[in-house]
């Protein structure tokens, strides 16, 4: 029971007064980010990352991961009360959450959403606690070919699993890789694709891309919809909470399925958004009363919320153990690790015990704190949403600009942020997915390095990726994922 010992050590780290303070700040900022349009988990964390450069890495990650949990909670508030998903993963929550609110059962819907989120996150943290050390130990034997194979699997499953057209997923991803390659080549020191521009020496920073794509892009989209916020009243009394809690155990099967879907989608880089849709769909298919879905079935709130939180939380497992983030927000956290001078990957578990277990302990605490905070402060957040968009929009643009500037103290980055914003807008409308672009931008250098190291070992032969059973089976799996859309196409053709 090494894990339990480590976990208690972690609680000792997380339960110091300053760290609890950072946890609370993180949760509050997170819910705020989740509630506001245009600010989300990924770009919220990206904007706040520069503020943590001076903090100890452990406190910093506790605060930033709590922002992430807070954002996951916050998305549900806007979905249920305003029918506006504050986050992409809470789109599925609007299907039944808003009808419930319209029927005057907003408090029940909110309580169900928050509690399910908590359950999903809790199950995922349990999994991370016991599975992550094993995965890390296992990954210690990985050489460059295995690492590249895992990265290949990550990217292949994006193409295989995405809702968007596979070619567009591939294009977005390759653009990420291309942007990552700009600047100084870390192996040979050659300048690549700078075309004589000195400002491109450092390459493109993914934080800027995240702030632009998700932040500015989202604001442009929201503006286009010409939003008028028309919301239901949200106030939760203790009676509502207890009533809902009494009802919830009835839906344990829905919950459990949602947890499984969420954990699976989080570890394989599907992320919270597809997990919530998949879970909603499954719950509807299996339910005895599928006709109630969309009209305010409580299961329709439980299923997506549980899965989204389970996925969001378990996305940290591959990030911590393999250095491969399972979601854009996890990717930003990974970027944070690199900036704080920590090398993500299996060695983190042996060399930075305090950091890793402090983070895992804070996941338990952060979700408990988060649940209490959101249950008690809902009316307050709903009030923030009533602030008209003509005030919110410019303020968010200002915040994004400040965030982009502070990454490198460079005005060029602020200009780039706008360009990425316009790109985010166009990509969203044309159904190019953003997550693979961001992930490729973060992982590009790493993937390229492990690819080149493997090529050096094998003297240029691609066979190295199937030479050991481990690398071979991961590569095989990756190829299956890659060809998945083609299978579907064949089936369609067969049917005629």
């Amino acid at each position, binding site marked *: 029971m090494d894990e339990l010992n480590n976990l208690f050590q972690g609680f000792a780290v997380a339960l110091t007064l300053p760290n609890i303070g950072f946890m609370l700040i993180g949760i509050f900022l997170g819910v705020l980010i989740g509630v506001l349009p245009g600010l989300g988990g990924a770009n919220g964390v990206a904007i706040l990352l520069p503020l943590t450069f001076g903090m100890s890495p452990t406190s910093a990650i506790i605060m930033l991961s709590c922002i992430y949990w807070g954002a996951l909670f916050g998305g549900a508030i806007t979905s249920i009360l305003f029918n506006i998903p504050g986050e992409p993963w809470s789109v599925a929550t609007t299907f039944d959450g808003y009808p419930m609110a319209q029927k005057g059962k907003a408090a029940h819907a909110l309580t169900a959403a928050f509690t399910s989120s908590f359950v999903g996150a809790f199950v995922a943290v349990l999994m991370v606690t016991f599975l992550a050390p094993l995965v890390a130990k296992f990954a210690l034997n990985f050489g460059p070919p295995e690492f590249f194979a895992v990265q290949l699997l990550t990217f292949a499953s994006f193409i295989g699993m995405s809702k968007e057209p596979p070619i567009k997923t591939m*294009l977005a991803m390759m*653009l990420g890789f291309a942007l990552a390659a700009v600047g100084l080549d870390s192996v040979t020191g050659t300048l*690549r694709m700078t075309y004589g521009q000195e400002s491109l020496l450092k390459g493109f920073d993914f934080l800027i891309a995240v702030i632009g794509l998700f932040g500015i892009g989202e604001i442009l*989209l929201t*503006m286009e919809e010409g939003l008028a916020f028309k919301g239901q009243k949200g106030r939760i009394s203790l009676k509502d909470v207890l009533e809902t809690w009494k009802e919830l155990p009835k839906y344990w099967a829905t919950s459990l399925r949602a947890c499984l879907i969420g954990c699976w989608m989080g570890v394989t880089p599907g992320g919270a958004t597809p997990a919530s849709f998949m879970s909603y769909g499954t719950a509807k298919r299996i339910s005895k009363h599928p006709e109630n879905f969309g009209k305010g079935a409580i299961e329709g709130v439980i299923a997506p919320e549980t899965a989204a939180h389970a996925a969001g939380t378990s996305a940290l497992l591959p990030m911590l153990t393999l250095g491969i983030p399972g979601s854009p927000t996890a990717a930003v956290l990974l970027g944070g690790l690199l900036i704080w001078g920590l090398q993500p990957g299996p060695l983190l578990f042996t060399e930075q015990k305090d950091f890793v277990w402090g983070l895992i302990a804070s996941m338990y605490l952060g979700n408990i704190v988060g649940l209490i905070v959101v249950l008690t402060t809902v009316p307050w957040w709903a009030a923030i949403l009533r602030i008209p968009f003509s005030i919110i929009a*410019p303020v968010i643009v200002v915040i994004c600009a400040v965030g982009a500037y502070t990454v490198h103290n460079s*005005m060029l980055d602020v200009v780039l942020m706008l360009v990425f914003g316009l790109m985010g807008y166009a990509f969203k409308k044309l159904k190019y997915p953003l997550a693979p672009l961001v992930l490729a931008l973060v992982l590009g250098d790493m993937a390229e390095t492990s690819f*080149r190291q493997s090529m050096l070992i094998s003297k240029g032969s691609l066979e190295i990726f199937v030479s050991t059973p481990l690398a071979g089976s991961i590569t095989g799996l990756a190829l299956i994922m890659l060809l998945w859309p083609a299978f579907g196409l064949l089936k369609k053709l067969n049917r005629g």
Partner: protein
Amino acid sequence: MKSGNHLQMRWMELLVAACFLGVSLLVITDSIRVGKAWGSDGPEPGYFPFYIGCLLFGGAAWIILQTLRAWKQDDGKEVFAEKHEWNLMMLMLIPSAVFVAAIFVLGIYLASLTFVAAFMVWQGKYSYVKSISVGAGISAVLFALFEVWFKLPLPKGFIETWLGY
């Protein structure tokens, strides 16, 4: 590109794919310049990006072909954005671009104040007093947070210099 009341999807599709095509050519030419082959000490710097460039080229070409094939059938019916939607988007994009340009001249505090206040007056029809106080409030919070608390300097203009910052 605009027909009647909306921006056609097919034109935007072509435009973005053409951008991808352009990027792919940039990537491929530069990879050839730095060497895409197998050097004396292993793969050359252009080895990996070259294939990335090729995939970009292939994908973009595919999208262009697909769009052209469906050109007649689509007949411009699929909507990228309605005209009024596009205009609303521009109402956000252009002021934001002006704001970023203004940071170069005015520094971020004055630019933010002006941007927030102007946007509120113009889009939200708020009174000058209200708008300017919200804008000033935002700038003050930014100043307290970055300049004072976290000691992260933000871009400044002549006003701050004049005030001695």
